[in-house]
């Protein structure tokens, strides 16, 4: 398929979005404001909202993501893996007198300066076992205990937003993450599609799968997403001026490697997800997993293995934020991990499994402000079990605050359906404008 073919298929929707984007760049926030308001009036407010949940797997070290370099105990606890202070070589990027962001998070810091990124420095799920697998289960299922439910809270939140199909969702990657599994059908996508497939085959298989509760819906959703992907991939390639045939026509045996580790690929992945979310009738909700945060040894500080992973996250967020264009103003991104890591550096220049960590919230829809939740400090008496950052906020409260204030999910449903048995966990106030 040539560039012209794709352009023909997608001319109208793409042009309008692109005009809005270039307009926004040229004229500043006025155009973006008018654009989103006019749209919101005609389409209903919920239809304009975008929500992205990023799960960082392996136990992301919050004390490196948002180092509290102003905390009196930070550098002593951290030793060789402490992030240097503000203004020092490889130092933290300043947020306030206590906190900075890791120096690899430059794009995120630029958003924070504009009030479009905030940290939640001591948040934890209700699980206290320090097991990756239990904690990820609780983080994604939204239950108060492990294996409490087999569906994900984001899926049940879609259910709470209205009839099936009203708000559409997508996960990025070839396998389905628990957070988006459940009764509401969700799309999934990863680079490399079925462009080469003879159009007869999906039809034949669709008939064979007519009574197959697993394969039937999966194939139908996959085919629908393929149609969107053609537009999304071409869109990103065009904006980057580097489209190749293989990026679009990547079916069959020439499947493109998925989720490569490089920063340009991370940025492109973020931009492609954005293109899925800005198409007419596009996906409003997305779930993304990024793994590789289990830094037991040689974690590094300003540079090193964790710095590389954070740079990947930063590039992905940058691609997503830029790609969303005017829609960024209606977007909230939440980035969370299953648990934090020990406050003290361990014996192998890394950190072991801990409790509270940092979550990030980003987006043009945020309310401006400082940290979300309280900071317990790293004073020895305040450490959880003399070991970890102590939690001051229940992760479910953070998610509930975003779902209530951004996506309009009512409290009663949040307490019972989305996060069962969580009536005692209040939604976090003041995260969303």
């Amino acid at each position, binding site marked *: 398929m040539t560039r012209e073919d794709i352009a023909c298929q997608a001319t109208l929707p793409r042009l309008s979005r692109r005009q809005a984007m270039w307009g926004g760049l040229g004229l500043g926030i006025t155009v973006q404001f008018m654009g989103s308001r006019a749209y919101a009036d005609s389409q209903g407010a919920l239809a304009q909202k975008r929500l992205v949940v990023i799960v960082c797997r392996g136990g992301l070290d919050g004390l490196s993501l948002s180092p509290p370099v102003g905390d009196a105990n930070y550098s002593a606890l951290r030793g060789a893996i402490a992030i240097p202070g503000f203004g020092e070589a490889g130092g933290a990027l300043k947020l306030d007198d206590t906190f900075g962001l890791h120096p690899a998070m430059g794009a995120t810091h630029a958003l924070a300066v504009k009030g479009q990124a905030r940290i939640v420095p001591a948040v934890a799920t209700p699980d206290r076992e320090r*097991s990756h697998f239990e904690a990820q289960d609780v983080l994604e299922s939204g239950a108060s205990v492990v294996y409490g439910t087999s569906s994900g809270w984001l899926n049940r939140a879609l259910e709470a937003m209205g009839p099936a199909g009203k708000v559409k969702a997508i996960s990025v990657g*070839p396998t389905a993450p628990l957070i988006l599994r459940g009764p509401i059908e969700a799309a999934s996508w*990863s680079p490399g599609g079925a462009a080469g497939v003879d159009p007869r085959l999906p039809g034949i298989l669709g008939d*064979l799968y007519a009574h197959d509760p697993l394969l039937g819906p999966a194939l139908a959703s996959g085919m629908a997403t393929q149609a969107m992907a053609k537009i999304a991939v071409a869109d990103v390639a065009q904006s980057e001026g580097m489209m190749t045939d293989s990026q679009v026509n990547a*079916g*069959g045996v020439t499947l493109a490697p998925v989720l490569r580790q490089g920063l340009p690929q991370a940025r492109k992945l973020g931009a492609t997800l954005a293109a899925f979310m800005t198409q007419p009738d596009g996906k409003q909700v997305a779930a993304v997993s990024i793994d590789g945060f289990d830094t037991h*040894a040689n974690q590094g500080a300003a540079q090193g293995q964790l710095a590389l992973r954070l740079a990947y996250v930063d590039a992905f967020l940058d691609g997503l934020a830029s790609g969303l264009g005017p829609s960024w103003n209606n977007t909230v991104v939440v980035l969370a991990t299953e648990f934090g890591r020990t406050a003290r550096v361990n014996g192998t220049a890394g950190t072991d499994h801990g409790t509270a960590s940092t979550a990030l919230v980003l987006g043009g829809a945020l309310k401006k402000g400082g940290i979300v939740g309280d900071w317990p400090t790293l004073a020895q008496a305040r450490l959880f079990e003399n070991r970890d950052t102590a939690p001051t906020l229940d992760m479910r409260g953070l998610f509930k605050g975003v779902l209530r204030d951004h996506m309009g999910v009512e409290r009663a449903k949040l307490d019972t359906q989305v996060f069962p048995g969580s009536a005692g966990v209040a939604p976090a106030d003041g995260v969303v404008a």
Partner: protein
Amino acid sequence: MAIDHDLKSAIAVTRLGLGAKDGEIAAARNDPEAYLIAQIRPEGADQPQTNAPTAAERFNEFRAYQQERQAAKQVGDAKTDPVKMAARMLRDDTGVDFVARVRLAASTDAGFRERWALFWANHFTVSANKLVTATVVGPFEQEAIRPHVFGRFEDLLVASSSHPAMLLYLDQAQSIGPNSMAAQFQARAGKHVGLNENLAREIMELHTVGVDAGYSQADVTEFARAMTGWSISGLREPDAGRFTFRDRAHEPGARTIMGRRYAEGGEGQARAVMKDLAASPHTAHHLAVKIARHFVADDPPPTLVARLQRAYLDTNGQLSVVAKTLITSPETWNPTAAKFKTPYEFLVSSWRAAGVLPQDIAAIAPVMNAMGQKAFSAPSPKGWPEEKEVWCAPDAVIKRMGWSEAFAAKAVGDRDPAQIAANALGARLSPLVAKTIARAETRPEGLSILLMSPEFQRR
């Protein structure tokens, strides 16, 4: 529930084996259970045909590469051609290992034996998530897993936990007792060294008793202390690259783990803990659930779990008996195929059905990546997941369809896809799929339909 021999032989080869080669279901028909039981043997699983060096040799090569890289860095450039070439050669070795493994799976006459070995390799996951573990993951399976899969679980546990690949993957090799001689020596030099509890935790949580066994953080830390000293010999030491016990790094003193006291015993202290962990009823239950979940259903029948658990406890963890119990349990033969194949299982069974032997890592690796199961690279120490909801994502079905069509076009030749389907699924082939294949426009289309059919995607 009585089922006939035609269906039972199809289940034996496709659910408990790796998918049917031409004639395999017919060979199992006389006595499907005996066909599988005959594959159990004390010497363990088959070994993939490679000229692979040992893990020790591989690890030493890696360390030589590291030194070369360090030296190049000091004169300014770590990315010289010789350094890059050395890294490439290390990666190529991993590719050779993986191809040998899939060729064994695609060709073996003992599909159950290989599935049983793959189950244990996944239970004791070492992931090629770093170059150093990539270089040793193939030898790890060959040295620590395959010889022991029909022996006692305790031996498998010790072999895995003392293998350099596991010691590297879960950071045990560098863990040092805070009160050991080595730590005191380092402290005098102003250097902080100490415990790394990663392997100790995962042995308890994933490999043996499981997270619900009632142990605490203190038990994990105590076990980590007991394990200090389990390490790998340096390049200039005897047995370079092999397991060694470093007395000087071992935390002195008795330990208490899950209510039991372990006297100081050097290397033997952690072995004594492992012996008790292996004998625990929690371990028997944890393993029984995992085996039943892998072989029969994501939500395994409790009666089957109970049988496997009893077999384990009655024999002190004799895995050949557990395997035989699995084969002879009625729940194993439920006519409904409840398991959705992982990408590895799907590809292997496709190669077996079509009589194709995969050749080239450059062709296999991108396909595995795209389907979400990167070669030798499970996402965490928990290994690859089992649940159908994970693997049957919309994107994955599209990727399988794209691959099936391309593969069928190359593989079918002048053969009749209807015959391939009959050989591959036997009595599990439904009339609807048989009819659809018969009506296909072309031979490649017929084979694509077989590979993507609901019954071929499941086992």
